[in-house]
């Protein structure tokens, strides 16, 4: 059983199926990725560098935007990804 699952080839993140420890190199759908920080089971790992402002893609669709540069092997979660939907806390789109 693989340590992570990559759902579609378009995805730039994988989901950990077991706890991932720092420094370990895992096979993510044929791509070797070195784990940069410990990642809990069920959480996501970046398969490639995602620059700030870039789309985070899972299930082949965007699930949010990187708010800082995310390096390959990093934990991808609420600390570095923002949702684009239901954001009443932000100024309305198109507003000055």
């Amino acid at each position, binding site marked *: 059983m693989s340590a992570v699952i990559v759902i579609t080839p378009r995805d730039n993140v994988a989901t950990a199926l077991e706890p991932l420890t720092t420094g370990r190199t895992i096979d993510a759908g044929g791509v070797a990725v070195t784990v940069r920080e410990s990642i809990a089971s*069920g959480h996501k790992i970046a398969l490639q560098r995602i620059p700030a402002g870039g789309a985070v893609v899972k*299930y082949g669709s965007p699930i949010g935007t990187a708010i800082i540069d995310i390096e390959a092997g990093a934990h991808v979660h609420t600390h570095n990804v923002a*949702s684009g939907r239901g954001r009443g806390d932000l100024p309305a789109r198109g507003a000055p």
Partner: protein
Amino acid sequence: MSTRPGFEGYRRPDGRVGVRNHVLIVPTVVCSAVVTERIAAAVPNGVALPHLAGCGQLGPDMQMTHDTLAAYCRHPNVGAVLVVALGCEQVVAQMLAESARQAGKPSAIVSIQGEGGTPKAIAKGQAIAADLARGLERDTREWFGAEELILSLKCGGSDYTSGLAANPALGRVADRLNALGGATVLGEIAEIMGAEHLLAARATQPEVAGRLLRVIQRVESEAQALGLDIRGTQPSPGNIRGGLTTIEEKSLGATHKAGEESPLTDVVPYAARIARRGLTVMDTPGLDVESVTGMVGGGAQVVVFTTGLGTPTGNPIAPVIKITGNARTAQTMADNTDLDVSGILSHTETIDASADRLFAEILAVCSGKLTSAERLGHREFAIHRRNPTI
């Protein structure tokens, strides 16, 4: 007996088919809720429908409460109805009883003020409900094809396994049921946000896709009107601990339970009658109990509820089947779980094999097998409110 997939249910006078045969004891208003529970406790197959509304409501909010209660009175899983009124409330007992009568069900009314207080209303109500229950003893189950089913698709307490295992397995079942000529219903508009493009592409008419997008836009603008980030509730704190980062991610996983192929044939208001085969989207909130309450009100006879973290939610009149793709939850929440599909993630079972087991379980439950929620007495019921109480 046919080799087609089917179940043993109850034919109703209005042509619909039920999978349970309850005597439903309905309070018109919160004030009569306790009396309904006392009556139901004394009657075989009696279920109460306690709720918190029925007065102090205006306009569309009042209408939604009335329509939801009336929908339960007409529901095919209900064999007979006793309405318990206080006597001075807004919801009109006669109109609820009439809804049951129009569907061909015996019905009666007890008024607490009319009987002269709680003990007398309970005594009168128990006597009437016992008569109604005796009338239902003559009913027998007969065989029906699976196409008679409206299956409610629900997920809650989601974690990363939901979108990878339980929801895809349910999605295969939804596609099979719709292909047989049955119907499915998906609620929780907030949890379609971010995945609406996938459902809109399956709409049978551009007008249906347009209605879906308008409903989603309304829910999103409600969060925006509050000036708040929807992440305060979507994903929930437990979802985030489980690894879900954004509502888009949660929605993409959640929408898997509506299948990959079924046509989107309709978009309906809360608790409104599901009238078309194929996939219907219902305008319900994401709160589990309000969502299930609405979809069952729409006519779903059975609910499949996928969960990652485990959850107890049931319904007063419809069986709720719990399935999980999380092996740990299947153990720790075994009492609340009906089906374990964690083999999908450990590669010991295919999604199709899990779907086969789930379809068989749905048909067994529709033929009378009790779910864990039914055995544990889970009968959660909450009517969605559009406005604050006046």
